[in-house]
């Protein structure tokens, strides 16, 4: 730790003064100051990537069992992917669609509800505004995650009253997720909305725009980056949620990838490994694509205080 810090310091200092310094390093000094960094990085890379390589390799291994998957890329075939979509007990395609729809609708809904609330808090001065902001923060202290027993009991009750949004319903699950739409998101967006100059609203109002027209056609476009961050975080969070999805969705046809794939692993673990691996690889694709697509927003969103969910 000690040496790396100094070299890091010297390195970055050197970058300003002597850009072609490395060519003059003796091999020994190069090793002491730069070379070992490659070794550390390579070891870390192995740790970071091996599980991913392993799961990709398992998914392509036709033996399909856990034991058979231990030689990386020993044999390559698409059998598992075919099995994945033809297994009648585990309707993978349905899980996939369910997950994309549930996470997508939740993300859009979360962004919309959060943006509306942030607009109200940022642009209007009304009685209870400060109190409202503060209560949002306090309510959020008790996360939905801890109330899942009560969520389950509420869904049982709703099943009798309104079957469409009760226990076992995908729409019901979306509504549960939307319960968390305000709160942290509103704070994140509220700060961003405040950076959009008010003069724009005033100009629009003078031109005869209603508050709705101002909101939908002007403000929402200007705050697009924060909408993307909130939408992505919500999508990934919902996509990965096992806890609430597992207690709300009982019917195999309605489940999400997290709940469905867990069953592959928890029941008859080792024979189903190859199929599970194929399912896992495909399930990771949308999230990784989104990360690539929105990478520059994510880094700023991360430092704004969100944690992986």
């Amino acid at each position, binding site marked *: 730790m000690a040496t790396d*810090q100094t070299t890091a310091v010297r390195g970055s200092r050197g970058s300003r003064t002597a850009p072609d310094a490395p060519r003059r390093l003796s091999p020994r000094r190069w090793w002491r100051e730069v070379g070992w960094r490659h070794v550390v990085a390579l070891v870390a890379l192995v740790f970071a990537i091996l599980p991913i390589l392993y*799961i990709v390799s398992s998914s392509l291994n036709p033996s399909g*069992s856990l034991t058979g998957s231990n030689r990386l890329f020993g044999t390559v075939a698409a059998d598992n992917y075919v099995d994945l979509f033809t297994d009648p007990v585990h309707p993978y395609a349905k899980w996939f669609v369910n997950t994309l729809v549930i996470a997508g609708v939740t993300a859009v809904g979360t962004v919309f*509800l959060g943006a509306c*609330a942030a607009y109200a808090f940022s642009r209007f001065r009304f009685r209870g505004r400060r109190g409202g902001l503060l209560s949002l923060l306090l309510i959020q202290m008790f996360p939905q995650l801890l109330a899942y027993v009560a969520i389950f009991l509420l869904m049982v009750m709703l099943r009798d009253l309104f079957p469409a949004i009760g226990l076992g319903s995908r729409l019901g699950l979306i509504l549960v997720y939307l319960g968390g739409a305000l709160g942290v998101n509103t704070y994140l967006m509220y700060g961003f909305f405040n950076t959009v100059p008010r003069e724009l609203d005033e100009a629009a109002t003078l031109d005869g725009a209603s508050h709705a027209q101002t909101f939908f056609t002007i403000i929402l476009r200007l705050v697009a980056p924060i909408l993307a961050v909130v939408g992505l975080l919500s999508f990934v969070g919902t*996509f990965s949620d096992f806890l609430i999805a597992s207690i709300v969705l009982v019917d195999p046809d309605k489940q999400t990838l997290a709940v469905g794939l*867990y069953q592959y692993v928890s029941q008859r673990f080792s024979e189903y490994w190859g199929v599970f691996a194929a399912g896992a690889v495909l399930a990771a694709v949308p999230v990784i694509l989104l990360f690539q697509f929105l990478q520059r927003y994510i880094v700023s969103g991360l430092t704004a205080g969100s944690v992986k969910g």
Partner: protein
Amino acid sequence: MSRTTTPPAASPRSRTTRGPSHGPAGPDGPRGPRTWIGAQTFSAGFVVKLVLVGLVDALGVYGVLASAAQQQWGVLAFLVAALLVVNLVYFSRRAVPGKYLVPGLVFLLVYQVFVVAYTGWTAFTNYGDGHNSTREDAVEAILVQDEARVPDSPTYALSVVTRGDELAFAVVDPEGDPLVGAAEQPLEPAEGADVEGGRVVALDGYDVLDFAQVVARQSDVFAMRVPLSDDPNDGSLRTTDGSAGYVYASTMVYDEAAGTITDTTTGTVYTADETEGSFVADDGTALGTGWRVFVGLDNFTRVLGDASLRGPFVGVLLWTFGFAIGSVVLTFGLGLFLAITLNDWRVRGRTVYRSLLILPYAFPAFLSALVWRGMLNRDFGFVNQTLLGGAEIPWLTDPVLAKVAVLTVNLWLGFPYMFLICTGALQSIPQEVYEAGRLDGAKPWRMFRSLTMPLLLVSTAPLLISSFAFNFNNFNVVYLTTEGGPQDLSAPVDVGASDILITFVYKIAFGGVNRQYGLACAISILIFLIVATISAISFRKTRALEELG
């Protein structure tokens, strides 16, 4: 959703008063007739609003009717209030902020405020398996449980029929009269029954199932019981083959006036105990099914006072701290180390390293846990078989190694996040600080300890605290990797060596045969109190750090 605009020329008054901060309400206020209808123009926006609010109203009215039918007065009151608020807010010219807040607030109220309050309430009840309903339901369940075929009871010729989706039995009683009944509807004379060969072959309003259809639904048919009358003591009619019905009666007899249930086989009398929510005999044994009652602080005192439960709870609590702190320290340590290592412009391919190192972060967390679960399998897993050359290390089934396993998985998942943050934070530390340090003769380690770390912590401390709070409740990693196992068989509840509080609660509430919602909610509240206290204290401490920077 959106409110219509009056074109400025048409209404000079509203033009002068309209502004984002206050709605252009007339002197009559929002309910004044002129501002209500007179100023609305039927523009596209207004039509959209009308349709949306109309839809909400239609759904709301449906909800009101449904809850009235089920006699759920609380739900009904909420719906009526919500409908009134929605209509007032959207058709008023005032309450502009309300138009933007109401949709989110409705969800917040139902799925967050209400469920939190409900968690609090449930924590003070004995809600759970065996205690999930009213006393009447409990009596019925107890009588049904101990039903046995009445010796030498008559045989009913039985046909299985359906009305819509609902199964029912159409029978011919020993006197030759046709009767019909369903699970919720005691036997009654069947009007319009067509009896042929001593059994019902057709019945108005019902479809008679043939043999193949009965076979297709046999598990439902065999589980079905049709009460003989409204009195649960009379017993019920069941079938074991789909063509003959027999009378089953309970060995338990309920006396409503005395509030007792008597077991006729043993003669034991069980008396209703309203504080326990169970029927209890003189010797203290209780019947398995009871009803929901308020038990005060019982759940909390059980967790903290009952020695057999306190042991596991304290163990889980300590490990939850160990897991959360360990996760933060390990991920931050590795992330910082890598950030420092790669924070040197002379390292070629830094951007490639960086983009590959954050791959675990982009991989969905629940998948990572499941993948590692396979890799760590003792007999067939990649780690033992390939990396360790055929070792048989019980990663997931040994109490200590299971903890190592979940920490490793979480390290894999979490270090890229810390790496990203530390890289950003390192780059924002001004180099002059180090030059000053060098002039003062500081050694590298001293500079790291006294300059880098404090400056880094200023920007990362809040993130470390939220990371701690997140990992304190990191359900996915623990449950999907080890399911909290290996199980501690000596404990009275389902609890394992790597369980953290939230997975412990999950198992109490949904895990085994005996679901204890009340107890689970009580522990949820304890978790909340712990996390909230820690967050409050540490945020205060970090403010001190910020003054440093």
